[in-house]
């Protein structure tokens, strides 16, 4: 780890101010990706701005029938939340399967989606549920616009995620096939039946989380596993690595979609 300055703001305004005045600074959320990166000397920030002590970034509340979850809410809090389990049980179930207990007790929703790891779980839920990402600049970014590429988002350099609003779906489910080494998703599929139609988001399979429109169309016509049988996913744009070929990932997308559907009930 290289030396850096460390800031611990207690308000969002203070954090935004620090970020604006330290262009080489990085925000620290749960640190589950960034701390290992620092330890391997793969990053050299001038400063870390630790968001852990900003009360307004934490908490889970019901809003307009759906859920609003603060950016600094830990995965373990989402997994254990009676409110989340009641309103969107699939979200609690997804959080319960992220990493291991240590990761879940440190990792945060905001940190996960700001990093936008291609194999992370939360982006699938945010995109699958058609959530809205709220920021320190007062923006409300639709999930469809938020995830722009591998480790890329629509966030501006000096912008901080404050919360994510998830509308309540009629039904939703998530199924992932974990990498046996890292336990990240080799393929994770989030399916949701929402007021605006069926949404299916896939993580792990491509450079960025994406909507599987072919499966969406199939499920739009019939919300059943059989509907997915006819769907063939094109492996052309999927990842191929030592853990899984693109063809295998394409196959797993349909398998996991069915399992997510089963989980959704």
């Amino acid at each position, binding site marked *: *780890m290289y*030396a850096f300055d460390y800031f611990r703001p207690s308000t969002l305004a203070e954090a935004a101010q620090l970020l604006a005045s330290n262009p080489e600074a990085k925000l620290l959320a749960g640190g589950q990706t960034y701390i290992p990166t620092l330890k*391997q*000397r793969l990053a050299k920030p001038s400063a870390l701005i630790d968001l852990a002590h900003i009360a307004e970034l934490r908490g889970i509340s019901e809003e307009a029938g759906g859920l609003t979850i603060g950016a600094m809410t830990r995965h373990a809090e989402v997994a254990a939340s009676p409110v989340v389990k009641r309103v969107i049980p699939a979200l609690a179930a997804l959080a319960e399967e992220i990493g291991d207990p240590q990761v879940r007790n440190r990792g945060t929703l905001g940190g996960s989606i700001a990093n936008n790891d291609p194999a992370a779980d939360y982006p699938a839920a945010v995109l699958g549920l058609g959530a809205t990402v709220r920021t320190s600049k007062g923006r409300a970014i639709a999930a469809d616009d938020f995830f722009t590429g591998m480790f890329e988002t629509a966030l501006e350099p000096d912008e901080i995620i404050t919360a994510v609003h998830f509308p309540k779906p009629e039904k939703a489910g998530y199924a992932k096939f974990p*990498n*046996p*080494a890292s336990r990240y998703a080799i393929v994770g599929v989030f399916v949701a039946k929402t007021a605006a139609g069926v949404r299916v988001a896939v993580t792990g399979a491509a450079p960025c989380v994406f909507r599987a429109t072919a499966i969406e169309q199939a499920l739009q016509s019939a919300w059943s596993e059989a509907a997915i049988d006819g769907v063939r996913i094109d492996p052309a744009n999927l990842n191929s690595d*030592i853990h899984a070929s693109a063809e*295998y990932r394409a196959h797993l997308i349909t398998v996991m979609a069915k399992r997510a559907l089963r989980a959704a009930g």
Partner: protein
Amino acid sequence: MAEKGIGARVLRKEDLRFISGRGHYTDDINLPGQAYAVFVRSPHAHARIKRIDKGPALASPGVLAVLDGQDVAADRLGNLVCGWLVKSKDGSPMKMGKHPLLAQEKVRYVGDRVAVVIAETYHQAKDAAEKLIVEYEELPAVVDLAKAHDAPALVHDEIPNNLCYDWELGDKAAVDAAFAKAHHITRAQFVNNRLVPNAIEPRAAIGHWDPGQDAYTLYMTSQNPHVHRLVISAFIGIAPEHKLRVVAPDVGGGFGSKIFIYGEECVVLWASKKIGGRPVKWTAERSESFITDAHGRDHVTTAELALDKEGNFLALRVNTKANLGAYMSTFSSCIPTYLYATLLAGQYKTPAIYCDVQAYYTNTVPVDAYRGAGRPEASFLLETLVDQAAIELGMDPADIRRKNFIPKDAFPYQTPVALVYDTGDYARVFEEALKIADYYGFPARRAESEKRGKLRGIGLSCYIEACGIAPSAVVGSLGAGVGLWESAKVRFTHTGKVQVLTGTHTHGQGHETTFAQLVADKLGVPFEDVEVIHGDTDKTPVGMGTYGSRSLAVGGEAIVKACEKIIAKGKKIAAHLLEASEGDIEFKDGKFTVKGTDKSKTIGEVVFAAYVPHNYPPGLEPGMEETAFFDPPNFTFPAGTYVCEVEVDPQTGKVDIVRFIAVDDFGNVVNPMIVEGQVHGGLVQGIGQALLEGARYDESGQLLTGSYMDYAMPRASDVPFFEVVTTQGTPAVANSLGVKGCGEAGAIGAPAAVINAIRNAIGVRVEMPATPERVWRAIQQSPMLKAAE
């Protein structure tokens, strides 16, 4: 049996400190004035070093020294060597490439040591290491073992075809003749996947030269501190042996990887003198461990089994290419030869066996012993080949094994591959395992799995291994550069407490408990009064260390011999005190008694008399401390049957192990609980090899599986609750305890059981690791499953 003597399930003494964070490991040691070492390593698999500019690194804050291969050469330090000379078929010795402590002229794998930076703090050393300027001329890398012979590059310029040796064992003419008249020949090719050892504690060392004494101390993570002392003095030449103390305190796992003499530990010792005698500390980072700890396995093999029409084995022919990596590690030559081909008879009476092995250099991390070392490779190919033969002949895999087991009345049994098995009753162990597994009730379980959409399979593996390494004259005749006896010192104190100093080393095996049980049993003293001391060359008698499941069978027997000397001396003292003749004294349960009387002295009274010899046999030395060395007359041969049941998800190819039964014949057992724990650990590593683990390199020689993000270690949730039975065994002959060794069995026997179970489920043998994608692809191509559709 004493309450905590031989055979008792005594809880491990050492565990309280380990699980409460009170262990004392090398990295826990901090000496006054300590400096820190960071190694600069090659980023290339193969390159010529054109230039090293130390300037910017030396100018970096806190830097005390920057040392490279030229400094090593200037100080005339010796090369790292392989201590076992293997000869090729034509009688020529193996070709050992030079392996300097720090690279000279060329780097030969990603991670090869180029230089070391010593600084006041760890972070200063890290910062300076980044500033070292090294110019390389990249060379083509030899990565693929199968193509190493004709590769366009040479790892060592002076070694043609990258071939270290071309070795053989067995009667080729007899094997060829048997194949010529065989009714059926079963052929297969195997890849035995390369494994990264992954001990929980990374390697670490602190070297310290004391200018006042002109003496050296090396604290390090070692499985065999005396072997380290020997090699560092005799071959590397840093310090004479009597001026070097090697201390291996608590060590967090080894699995073989901490047997070897690596460059880093030698360098910190040497560097301490270079900076005037300040201690120098190095602790590997985990990513360093991945690219510097010697890897294991890595074979490509073609094997053929000749059978008659009843399924009797007539002959076995095996050709193996073994990957040595970039340099010969300390014992790398004997792993794919004398610890491998000699086990190819397995539990069977195959009359003729021939094996030849070509060992190649590649631009990868050196390969050496890893839990099982050679024996897992032999057992895996034999047990999967036997299964395949059964399938091809339409036989039940159980029946083909029954037909070919060495019968229990055939011992001692001379195999066609040099070893003489002392004892065994393979068929009985086999039937016991099948009974526990309800082997013949499997079809009902398969049907039940099928209802849930799962493919169920059952697999057998009947392993054998050679432990208790080793009779010195035998290994000497095969090329070993050392004897493989073991030593012990048993020391009573005035107050009747016992210190046991052993030449073995415990790094997870539980010696502090097992050896205390042994001594409590033999001397009739309370278990709590026995302290086992190990891991310090200034304290313990010279020993060869711990590996190859040898500590109890060889080191334990040395303890027994020392106890016998104690008892013999005690009889003389008791006879004097009891005014009886020495021949009339019996020793039992801690008491010396005059035969046929109730006159006796406790061992405590006798020991006290030895230290306070006011009334003492004339001419007898005072004191009660005895040393013994034990050189075993033969190896020991643990054997067993493992039964694995898997469920395969046909949609994803994911394999779940639903049952695993291990029945082992370890001969007599000192602590069944520790033995079961050892088997559990071995099984998990064997299952790891079968399903999860595998080091992968890209074409340029970069390790793709260089962290836990990509190298899959088995977790608790990957394995079932094991059903481990240490059966009433056949006692080993080579030691008076009748013990065989249990540390490696699980890792040796498990892979074939898992792979056979998967083949039974899907009809295709999948290469290890049987990852979900490999299994899924095999399912798509399975004639058996197509036929069932």
